[in-house]
């Protein structure tokens, strides 16, 4: 019986290839989405009581909060981009015998995302 050699992945495997690094960044940026979800939950919980809402409101107007929002926005946009890029893999559409071009599906999703985001921004600023 020959001795076989097993080669476990080193801990830094994701630093060895750009694609693996991008994958890790995609996964890590989901934490930004999670952080914003926590912020929304805080907002909802504090809405019931005037005292805690004013604490939340004070936090919102702080420069820390502005920076936090900016960072979360950038990371969430990156994360959203990776999801939109993934849509043609999941939504395989056929027009008769021909597969709809993946670029068209990703493009349509991007336009939809921009339109919904635009509508939300318009609603908030109205």
């Amino acid at each position, binding site marked *: 019986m*020959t*001795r*076989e*050699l*097993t*080669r476990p*992945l080193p801990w830094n*495997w*994701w630093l*060895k*290839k750009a*694609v*693996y690094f991008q*994958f890790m960044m995609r*996964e890590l940026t989901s934490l930004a989405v999670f952080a914003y979800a926590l912020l929304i939950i805080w907002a909802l919980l504090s809405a019931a009581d005037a005292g805690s809402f004013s604490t939340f409101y004070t936090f919102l107007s702080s420069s820390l909060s502005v920076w936090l929002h900016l960072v979360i926005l950038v990371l969430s946009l990156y994360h959203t981009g990776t999801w939109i890029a*993934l849509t043609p*893999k*999941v939504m*395989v559409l*056929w027009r*008769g*015998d021909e*597969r709809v071009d993946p670029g068209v599906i990703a493009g349509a999703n991007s336009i939809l995302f921009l339109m919904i985001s635009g509508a939300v921004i318009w609603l908030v600023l109205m």
Partner: protein
Amino acid sequence: MSDRTVLDVYRYLPDNESEPTFQSYELDYQDNWVVLDALNHIKAEIDSTLSFRWSCRMGVCGSCGMMVNGEPKLTCETFIRDYDTQTITIEPLSHFPVIRDLVINMDDFMEKLPRVSPWLIPDEDKPLEDGEYLQTPAQVAHYKRFSMCINCMLCYSACPVYGLDPSFTGPAVLALAARYNLDSRDDGMKERAAEVSAHEGIWECTYVGECTQVCPKDVDPAGAIQMLKLSYALDWARSVVMPRSSGS
């Protein structure tokens, strides 16, 4: 026209040494040489102890997969002239146990392959006199891409999920499950669910996507797995909303 290159080749001789080493072979190569030609030249002219697998030499049998400068490649399709580095590093496919030199043990893959029932499972077998199961070109187009796999296992070597957890069913086997699930003559999706829609199956895939990039046959296992996720998730949702009509 001939040129000179150095192949830095991974050596593991379990009878002589416990750790792998790298051995450099300097050689002249022709412009039309692929990496496999160079390895065969080494074996015939320089060092007959070097072990590696190959068979068809035309990208069909899937047995000559190796890491070339860290990328999983079919060495019979990888031209030396395309590497402008002085030295080309050749290693056995990542994530698989090494038996000797560039030869890996693929038992794990072979054991997983039949688990997803990669054959047609019709609800009812037609009697022979009814003739063939006919398909339109459009029906063939739905699964054709996923049927082109040559079991070269480059996708397993590119997949860090498999590298971290070898219990993951893996890209090629799941792509083959998708190939049958998408076939109009097949009704085996539910039968395959226990293997395919398991934690070690599609749900372990985190969509790194590199399996699709390295596939020499353009199979797109990453896409197949995402499609499987959607179809099994919809099937589950249907079974919750309409428990009776789903038949599960």
